[in-house]
């Protein structure tokens, strides 16, 4: 059988880190900050989670520390774009590069090893129903984010800041405050994503272990149009594509072809969603001009 519970579990394991990071990216996007530093923030989360869990013996403290450390790291983006009005893309790329160098450097300094830190006594997260508790948290976070962004005053103001900062400012809403909050929140979520990867999916730290998951999250934000539910669906699509890719190798498909699975799915989904969106937009826009 091709579609079975193993495939689903594999997809859900792949989903969690991407989903958490993508939610953070979506919140930033809604506040008008284009965050492509997800990968770097996540990697900081991975490293802090492993280090803290190793020294305290508690994976939960590891999760907490990862969230805090990644939030602190995200301040680079917040201060850089909001206060200093720098370019978010430049900053994001720099943060990703810095994270790889910094974590590799700290790995050597703290643990005296290169490449990978792995120890049988490193405590990972427990499993509930085959999944890490952070998986359930990520689903709850989708629901909370969806309600906050569409119903709660905080979310509505955040969107206002993102869409028309000047208008929001005239109404007494401080764009800077909301943008800072959004970036810090994305830091927390990326930290959790990193903790999930390093203490949930596996229990170890490897240099550059995020391996492009932060970039997949950036694409999930775009594909899901920065809507929490859309992001969930997009991330789930990637998770399923990856898990199915592994299966297809078992059926004799070459690795190079199965590697392409997530990207083929992305292109397909982009094509379908834009085609549908265009069809919907066209009549109304012609109606407006006539």
């Amino acid at each position, binding site marked *: 059988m091709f579609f079975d519970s193993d495939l689903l579990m594999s997809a859900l394991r792949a989903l969690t880190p991407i989903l958490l990071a993508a939610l953070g990216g979506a919140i930033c996007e809604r506040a008008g900050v284009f965050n492509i530093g997800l990968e770097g923030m996540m990697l900081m989360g991975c490293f802090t989670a492993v280090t803290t869990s190793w020294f305290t013996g508690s994976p939960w403290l590891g999760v907490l520390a990862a969230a805090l450390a990644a939030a602190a790291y995200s301040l680079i983006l917040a201060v850089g774009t909001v206060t200093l009005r*720098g370019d978010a893309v430049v900053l994001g790329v720099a943060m990703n590069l*810095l994270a790889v160098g910094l974590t590799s450097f700290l790995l050597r300094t703290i643990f005296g090893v290169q490449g*990978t830190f792995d120890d049988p006594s490193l405590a990972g997260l427990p499993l509930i129903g085959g999944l890490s508790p952070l998986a359930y948290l990520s689903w709850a976070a989708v629901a909370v984010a969806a309600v906050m962004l569409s119903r709660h005053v905080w979310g509505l103001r955040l969107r206002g800041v993102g869409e028309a900062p000047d208008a929001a400012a005239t109404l007494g809403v401080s764009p800077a405050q909301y943008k800072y909050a959004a970036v810090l929140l994305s830091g927390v979520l990326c930290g959790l994503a990193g903790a999930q990867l390093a203490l949930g999916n596996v229990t170890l730290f*490897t240099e550059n*272990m995020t391996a492009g998951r932060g970039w997949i999250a950036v694409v999930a934000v775009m594909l899901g149009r920065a809507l929490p539910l859309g992001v969930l669906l997009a991330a789930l699509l990637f998770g399923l594509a990856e898990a199915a890719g592994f299966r297809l190798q078992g059926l004799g498909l070459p*690795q190079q072809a199965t590697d392409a699975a997530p990207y083929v799915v992305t292109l397909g989904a982009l094509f379908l969603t834009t085609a549908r969106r265009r069809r919907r937009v066209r009549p109304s826009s012609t109606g407006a001009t006539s």
Partner: protein
Amino acid sequence: MLRRSRRTLQVAATTALLVTAATACNAAAKDDAGSASAGSDTSFTLVTPDAVGQNEFLKLAVSGIKSAAKQHNGSQKVYESTDTASQQQNVQAAVDAKPDVIVLVGFEFADIVAQQAEKNPKQQFLIVDACTTKTFKNVSCAVFREHEGVFLAGAEAGLLSKSGKVGAVDVLDTPQFRRYSDPFAAGAKKVAPKTTTDTRFVGGQSPFDDSARAKEQADTLLAKGYDQLMAAAAAGNYGVFEATKAKGAYAYGVDVNQCTAAPGTVVDNVIKRTDVAVEKGIESVLDGKAGTTVSYGLKEGGISLTGLEDGVATSKCVIADHADVLAKVKELRDQIVSGKLTVDDPAAG
């Protein structure tokens, strides 16, 4: 508007500084001058791609150059690199010092050596575990026949498998990396012809670092009842070990003794004896056979298994408890060494 763009520039500059600062920390090359007996004629320099530290692969190379120096009554130096920038600097420093032979370990040096060899035609270079694409009269290469060792590990797996299913998790589907998976299947089938075999490739955006993906790949094999897995996924090996340990299955490591990473789970390792390659490589250069590529396998002692080396008992490897399996594997090794049995090389041709 002008003020704004100046600020953007400022931020960009600060970030650039930050990034350089972080990499600069790594760039501080650690030159470790080894014990040198002054006044001797022959001298060798070893340049490593990374800090030696606990890296068994490089530790062996260091002991190789030390015994070469002893043998030829010469002196030796070790330059440890920490990143690409310091690799360049160290090779330059080694060339400036003009030793008899400069030994470099790893594919990282192939391009750097090609440049230096052209500029310094009188300097002898020896690259271990890689080679330049163009041949030079003053560049010798020592490469390994990994597939011979992997074949023996496969034989162990075939003998130890209870389910009769033996698999491998490999990095990429290329001929060079298939040396770690195809011979594993062949070895298992040699001792147990009915064995089912399968290989999964990690792939993805960074196949060498992605332990989570490697673990998932291992899980798909384990779910189908595979109970012996060759782990050839670079840093992903640790993910493979986690998966096999959770299922009570067994794994096989590469390059160095990885049994310590998961005692009771890792059966054996295909190891590269860089010390043998360094020693014999230097010897052949001094004998006037420079500019050639020599491959090291079971016969030359360049490739081995942890189980076939001294110190198996303390290696924490599962194979230490299976003397009967080791006896059979030794037989196969002798057949390969004598040429009675040849292992197909997926990277040949």
